[in-house]
């Protein structure tokens, strides 16, 4: 019997280009990116105006908020948790931003961003504390805080709404002006994706999040500070949601008691479609971002090709199921491999 039969041949390259290429094609982001490209090509063939400059700009603007939310949600999901309260957090921050401009029209815009992210981080910290201290699944905790935060917003806002016309012109222009053809707020989103992506790939604390999501008990045995790391993931997600909330106020016409309602499920869908396993431990924020772009593009593309509204939602649903089934098939195959390799000499 040879012990090497169950193991793929050891390759001897030392991380050269071949290695990078192999890793690239094996990654989970490739199928999602492929689907996105195919979608754009097919839609453009049907409706050539889909790739007109204005339409492309709209596509980017529409994806921006979801991208940032998806990056934050990916951090949490990678640790095998979930944050369902982000729609409510976004609503609170967006309405707070409107109130801030209303109360202090001359407030410096960087300060608005700082305040929004801080507000979001505090709300995220509440989630994180409850999840790590109460040892109740995050699904349940954040379902509760989703309603609580929304309730607070409803009683704060009442029927009041702030309109983009009430905000300083410079703030609204963030969603209008372009740099190298890319809207300013989209550039913010891209910077967030790259920064968090590097953190998750190349910083020890980021790798700890993967370890926690992969096997929480093993992480504990290994001496990784599981509680503080999970708390930090929720705070980071809250802060990014806060950032998205400020950008939301810049981008959309009005903010009120219902702002952001239902957004959490779109975001979880984007993250899962982007290859981040809901069971934690795998996937990247790049994938989550591509998933966000894919989902927001599908909506536009189905509109551009005049597909019924009902089918838009059903299509998104099918994508989510496809992503989960592919994920499941891979892990079942791995498990079967393991069983066969163990039984080989009994």
């Amino acid at each position, binding site marked *: *019997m040879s*012990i*090497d039969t*169950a*193991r*793929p041949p*050891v*390759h001897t390259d*030392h*991380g050269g280009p071949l*290695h990078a290429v192999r*890793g690239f094609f094996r990654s989970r982001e490739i199928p999602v990116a492929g689907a996105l490209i195919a979608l754009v090509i097919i839609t453009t063939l049907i409706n050539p105006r889909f790739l007109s400059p204005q339409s492309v700009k709209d596509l980017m603007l529409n994806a921006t908020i979801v991208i940032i939310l998806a990056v934050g949600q990916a951090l949490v999901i990678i640790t095998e948790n979930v944050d369902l309260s982000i729609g409510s957090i976004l609503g609170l921050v967006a309405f707070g931003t409107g109130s801030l401009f209303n109360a202090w029209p001359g407030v410096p815009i960087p300060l608005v961003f700082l305040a929004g992210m801080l507000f979001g981080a505090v709300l995220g910290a509440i989630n994180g504390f409850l999840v790590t201290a109460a040892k109740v699944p995050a699904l349940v905790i954040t379902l509760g805080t989703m309603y609580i935060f929304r309730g607070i917003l409803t009683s704060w806002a009442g029927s009041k709404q702030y309109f983009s016309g009430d905000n300083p012109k410079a703030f609204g222009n963030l969603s209008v002006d372009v740099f190298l053809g890319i809207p300013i707020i989209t550039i913010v989103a891209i910077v967030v994706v790259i920064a968090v992506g*590097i953190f998750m*790939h*190349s*910083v*020890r604390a980021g*790798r*700890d999040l*993967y*370890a926690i*999501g*992969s*096997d929480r*008990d*093993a*992480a*504990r*045995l*290994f*001496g*990784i500070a599981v509680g503080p790391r999970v708390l930090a993931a929720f705070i980071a997600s809250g802060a990014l949601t806060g950032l998205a909330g400020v950008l939301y106020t810049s981008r959309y016409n009005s903010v009120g008691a219902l702002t952001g309602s239902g957004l959490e499920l779109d975001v979880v869908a984007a993250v899962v479609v982007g290859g981040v396993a809901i069971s934690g*431990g*795998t996937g990247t924020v790049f994938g989550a971002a591509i998933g966000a772009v894919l989902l927001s593009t599908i909506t536009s593309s189905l509109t551009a090709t005049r597909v019924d509204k009902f089918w838009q939602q059903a299509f998104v649903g099918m994508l989510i199921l496809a992503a989960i089934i592919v994920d499941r098939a891979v892990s079942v195959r*791995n498990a079967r*491999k*393991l*069983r066969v*390799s*163990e*039984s*080989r*000499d*009994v």
Partner: protein
Amino acid sequence: MANEVQHGIEPHQPSGTPASGTPALSLTGASKTFGPVVALADGTIDLRAGEIHALVGENGAGKSTLVKILAGVHAPDGGDFVVGGEHVAFKTPADSKAAGVSVIYQEPTLFPDLTVAENIFIGRQPRNRAGLINRGEMRRMARELFATLGVPIDPDRIAEGLSIADQQIIEIAKAISLDAKVLVMDEPTAALSGVEVDRLFGVARGLRDKGAGILFISHRFEEVFALCDRITVMRDGRYIGVHNTSEVTVPQIVKEMVGRELGALFPKVDAPVGETVLSVEGLTRLGTFRDISFEVKAGEIVALAGLVGAGRTEVVRAVFGIDRYDSGSVTLHGKALPPHNPQAAITAGIGFVPEDRRKQGLVMDLSVAKNATLTLRRSLARFGLISGSRERRTAEDWSSRLQVKTGSQDYAVSTLSGGNQQKVVLAKWLATEPTLLIVDEPTRGIDVGTKSEVHRLLSDLAGRGIAIIMVSSELPEVLGMADRILVMHEGRITAELPRAEATAERVMSAATSSLEGAL
């Protein structure tokens, strides 16, 4: 498998003089209790640098608790703990690791989604000047470690799907990279083949020669005697003694492991043995058990003895139809039982009391009455609806027969003691009037008084002509209760002993598969 184990053995070569080693780790008189359960009364181990030291004992002797204290998972309630000449009190696994203690568990605890290299270096990955992880360097370091160990594992593959042997090698690589002074291996060979055992032993000897102290926990005496310099024996949570391997024999060690009084337990009353109820022929599930054949007659208690992981539970689960099997047959009262069909097994007259009553035997939040009649839902129902009063009457009947102590039939089962919970599970199955009852670890976690009540009950049932299969890890229970004992080791039946011929030593040696001739 048994013959493969043998070829993994080389004559014992003591390395230098054991006495010359300096103490690497010593634990003296450590104790640990969980509520009323004393898991460890006197945990004592004296591990020297440059030795491989075996820790042996029966199931439940306290070895695992001792390992968890060394690993920093449990803090001991009392006792003296010295590592590398300094008194320590580990609060977390990180403390233990920092003190130079590495523990390799029977089931390695790797992160399945991370790469092999990252599994070794997580939390201390090499970094470049910008503070970012240097993956090239990490890969190189991992390769170097595997080269030292002489094992080619690809550092870039994810850990999921690796064989247990490779996972252990990764744990060892991790320990080496941490510069561990003490390496604890908790039954590392349980899931390994002969070649893999050889490889592991080679690595262990290499580490010993470089001055590490290795604590080796195993049930396999051939391995203990081939590999280890000294042996510490534990029994019932206590330190019994330590021996130089060269000055002691297998029977002596076995005697120390099992030497306990059997008197306090309830013995089975002899019952007339009737016709064959169950016959199992050549039952095989690849990777779990192989070629299992036995018969059980009416009025007989047949015990399946062996160590944890020998495949006993898996066999009875397959007989009952919970798990699939690859080949073989199960016949009840002369009729073949369809595989993988528990409902058919129940209808044919088999009752199954599982090992973990909290998870598999009872619905903890439901009332005693509802639990006791779960298996009877169909016959109690009228027009598809279950009648509450009939349910209660049936339950009361059985609880009084089994003397379940509960304030009311309506109390949730979770409020009862372990022994009484076990009686409710039994009531549930007895209500179906089975002709064959399978009980898996019937008295685990039950206090001594209730234990003998459960034993009397089983004896009683056998007296009424029910055939009983009892899986048990407790030797006194096996010896006291069984008419016949089937001993399993690594998925096979290694001995069949009638009551008259069964002794603790014979059961133990068949269970550890130390060859019959050695005794």
